[in-house]
């Protein structure tokens, strides 16, 4: 196979975040500020990414506004010609910072909103974030950024999908991303509390389908399916190491933001290797490229050209072998794992909130305390 050039880099600038959303895809054990790549290191990574062919840059986290050098990084990305998106909670986006980012050449801002209902929004965020977000939205609109709203959907807000869409339209979003929770990192740890019911999923799909048509040409709506309820797995970024790469706050390079969960692979670091070497040569990026690695039923399945066997991170997390078919697929007996997870996810949502605690995070569980709203 010919090796394609990557188009998209997700730069997770920091794990620091004022919010504590239990569906966060970041890993349970997160490095603190002291381990983060420096400004110079990020600048080099962006330059190498552009030389490699990257066109799209996501400045993400954590909350990227926690980085004081965000404006400098955005300016460098702009000079390279990258189409840059700031992926933010909106908390900490003052007018002064927004103006500086605008002057740096930042084009697109994506603000997360947790719910149309303020009380449940603040409950899932683990802080009173809603008022900050309203202010951030007003600034972003005022400065004329291309503006997206992202909403993660789960059991506690899926029934309000219609209200959420109307809210996004009223806030003047150019684009609305409605993303059903993907179960990675904290999201996986909270799966039982987040998983919607089958009835919710069917009802939400109908609302989304209608709104997508109604808002055509006014607000682009993307609806990310709840993959546990799908018949076939999602085609994860066009396959492993095909067009997408992620750099984590301490510099690890991943083919997918959930890949740190695959403990059998070693992911190289931009502090040790060039991005180009990691993309083309590193064992981790080569591990699941193409289809030579596939097992049955993927190996002989015509759908392997469509979904590439699904998500390697999900296959590893749920089956212990990253080469297995993504258990979402109904063509594998492994599907029983996903069906069981759906059946087990009942009862009132009790969240385990996201927090940075590298030493204890991997073993702690029900004893976690979440900060009261407004801490």
């Amino acid at each position, binding site marked *: 196979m010919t090796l394609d*050039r990557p*188009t998209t880099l997700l730069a997770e600038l920091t794990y620091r975040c004022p919010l504590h959303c239990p569906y966060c895809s970041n890993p349970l054990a997160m490095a603190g500020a002291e381990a983060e790549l420096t400004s110079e290191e990020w600048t080099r990574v962006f330059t190498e990414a552009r030389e490699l062919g990257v*066109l*799209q840059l996501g400045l993400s986290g954590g909350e990227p506004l926690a980085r004081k050098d965000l404006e400098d990084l955005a300016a460098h990305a702009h000079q390279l010609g990258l*189409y840059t998106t700031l992926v933010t909670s909106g908390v900490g986006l003052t007018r002064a910072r927004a103006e500086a980012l605008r002057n740096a050449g930042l*084009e697109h801002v994506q603000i997360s909103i947790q719910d149309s209902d303020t009380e449940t929004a603040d409950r899932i965020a683990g802080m009173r974030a809603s008022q900050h977000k309203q202010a951030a939205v007003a600034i972003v609109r005022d400065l004329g950024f*291309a503006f997206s709203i992202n909403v993660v959907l789960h059991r506690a807000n899926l029934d309000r999908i219609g209200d959420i869409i109307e809210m996004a339209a009223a806030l003047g979003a*150019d*684009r609305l991303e409605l993303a059903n929770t993907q179960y990675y990192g904290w999201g996986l740890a909270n799966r039982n509390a987040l998983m919607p019911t089958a009835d919710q999923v069917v009802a939400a799909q109908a609302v989304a389908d209608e709104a997508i048509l109604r808002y055509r040409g006014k607000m682009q709506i993307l609806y990310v399916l709840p993959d546990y309820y799908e018949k076939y797995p999602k085609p994860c970024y066009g396959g492993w190491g095909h067009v997408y790469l992620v750099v984590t706050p301490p510099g690890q390079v991943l083919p997918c933001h959930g890949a740190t969960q695959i403990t059998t692979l070693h992911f190289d670091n931009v502090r040790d290797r060039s991005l180009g070497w990691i993309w083309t040569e590193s064992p981790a990026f080569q591990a699941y490229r193409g289809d030579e690695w596939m097992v049955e039923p993927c190996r002989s399945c015509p759908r392997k050209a469509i979904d590439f066997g699904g998500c390697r991170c999900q296959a590893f997390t749920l089956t212990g072998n990253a080469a297995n078919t993504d258990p979402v697929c109904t063509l594998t007996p492994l599907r029983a794992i996903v069906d069981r997870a759906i059946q087990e996810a009942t009862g009132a949502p009790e969240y385990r909130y996201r927090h940075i605690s590298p030493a204890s995070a991997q073993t702690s569980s029900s004893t976690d305390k979440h900060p009261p709203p407004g801490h």
Partner: protein
Amino acid sequence: MGLTPASVPTLWRLARLDFDAVRQQHVLLYPEGAVLLNDTGAAILQLCDGHRSVAAIAQVLEERYQCDVLADVTEYLSGLFDRELIRDA
């Protein structure tokens, strides 16, 4: 759905036409996506200025290439219109 020769195509506010020096190829960039363009596609999109109609764009290209392109131009822009990357001004 789709555009007619009378439509006036304009790029989506969030989309940007650029030349990628790495691939030596024009690209259409937009949030979380990129379309790699061939020379013809780039020539069409460079004429989408919010004033020219599809027919007017085709006419410019017909003079340039000396062949009938109206159907191809309409189809090409309609495809991008369906993906919401082109708007009808």
